[in-house]
């Protein structure tokens, strides 16, 4: 059986960078656009890297900044200063 993790963001300016960063680091992830929101799902694992985000934004980025724009998640969370990972192990 397929075991998908997912994350949903508000469809706003911050989130667009986040989506770009996620697509770069998770090329197999599927991005779904729905009214006012963007939902991204992937098999088993999805990662957001601080480094990629900082490259996209051109400034320092704290991983916890994502708390402002996230709507929902599915999967076990592993967060530290450098990344935010969702996974089913």
């Amino acid at each position: 059986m397929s075991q998908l993790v997912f994350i949903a963001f508000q469809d706003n300016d911050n989130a667009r960078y986040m989506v770009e960063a996620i697509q770069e680091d998770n090329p197999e992830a599927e991005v779904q656009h729905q009214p006012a929101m963007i939902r991204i799902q992937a098999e088993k694992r999805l990662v957001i890297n601080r480094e990629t985000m900082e490259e996209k934004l051109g400034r320092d980025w704290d991983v916890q900044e994502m708390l402002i724009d996230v709507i929902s998640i599915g999967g076990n969370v592993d967060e530290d200063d450098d990344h935010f990972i969702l996974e089913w192990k």
Partner: protein
Amino acid sequence: MAVKNKKLNLKDKYQYLTRDMAWEPSYQKKEDIFPDEQFEGIKITDWSQWEDPFRLTMDAYWKYQAEKEKKLYAIFDAFAQNNGHQNISDARYVNALKLFLTGVSPLEHAAFQGYAKVGRQFSGAGARVACQMQAIDELRHSQTQQHAMSHYNKHFNGLHDAAYMHDRVWFLSVPKSFFDDARSAGPFEFLTAISFSFEYVLTNLLFVPFMSGAAYNGDMATVTFGFSAQSDEARHMTLGLEVIKFILEQHEDNVPIVQRWIDKWFWRGFRLLSLVSMMMDYMLPNKVMSWAEAWEVYYEQNGGALFKDLERYGIRPPKYQDVANDAKHHLSHQLWTTFYQYSQATNFHTWIPEKEEMDWMSEKYPETFDKYYRPRYEYLAKEAAAGRRFYNNTLPQLCQVCQVPTLFTEMGAPTKLSHRQLVHEGERYHFCSEACCDIFKDEPEKYVQAWLPVHQIYQGNCEGADVETVVQKYYHINIGEDNFEYIGSPDHKHWLSIKGQKPADQSKDAA
């Protein structure tokens, strides 16, 4: 970058907050300080294993919450200043908000009380901190929802007395009793009920596709509070999953207890969300996703992945999930025709879906809509056109556990009610389903006290014996304004005047 290195990293900060600031009691016994921690039979051997994966500390919490609030209230102001209510898709949509404000917002407040209470009950500091943050979040949700809807209250009926109605109105006993059940349980059951079963497994169905639908219907204020609340919810969900894993990892004796709670609270939550099914399919004039589709994504797919992950602890999917999965083809239609016939006693309006909407439902429910439900609306439309808009003038039987009228049908037999009954200590009790009957059998002492609105009316405890007196005096529903059919209602006329159209033919409008 030298400054950056001086900062504590996330893990250290979280460690300081949740471990180093707590202390071992020296002159009082732990059991006396935390007297509710044992009686449910949950065994915790090592609280230090508790982990909040977000590792949120108070400084970061206030910082990000303040930022969310600023964004949210800027949008509320803009919405009010620009008369945002005039730009929604159709005023029928506002009826979903009336149900939300009376049915959901008071639950946010109940959740605040619940987390504030259980936050005092755990001897582990990490759990106490998590519950405290969540209590504050829930209070924020209750308040922001009321603020968002106060603008609608200036322009539409039925939004004037939500908290009062929540404690009295017949269908609102469904959400109210759900949370009362959870809050009167022990602290571990409360977390399993609300953090795990409700927040993690089920609330996506309300806050994600429904809120996306609010945006699609032009309601900026609601989508904004919805998503703002949901951004806290992402934390709560993570906590819900961690709570379950923590309890299961602590002791194998916890597994059967937790399994029984998951079975119970999945079902209680599923019954509660039947209200959301009709909000999605019937109360959003512009439709994003059907209830069945939302159920497939957020329960069958995401819930499936979750329960597969929990297999390693010996946890299986909730006992009656096959019934819930089958019900996705019927639920919203059965609920809407129920509210349609009891609109004389609701603070919101109901209506017959328009032709395009019914065609959408035929497409979304190919196995069931044309066969079972379209004929209902064709009949009801014919009756309404002949001046006989249907209202059921007799009160319905309610389920002793979920308190929903016993309207649900058997799996695989959608015209046969799934009614159950039993006798307990000489009293008869009636249920909407095998699952609710099971819940009663586990804890009969709890549910024999159920305050069932229909029975309370018949006992004479609701200020009158006839529906009109109960509705007006006891419920504070303004007759002829808040209740009855949408077509021809004051809200409908007001909307037509906003849109510069004449009211529809009055002869068809008689309620």
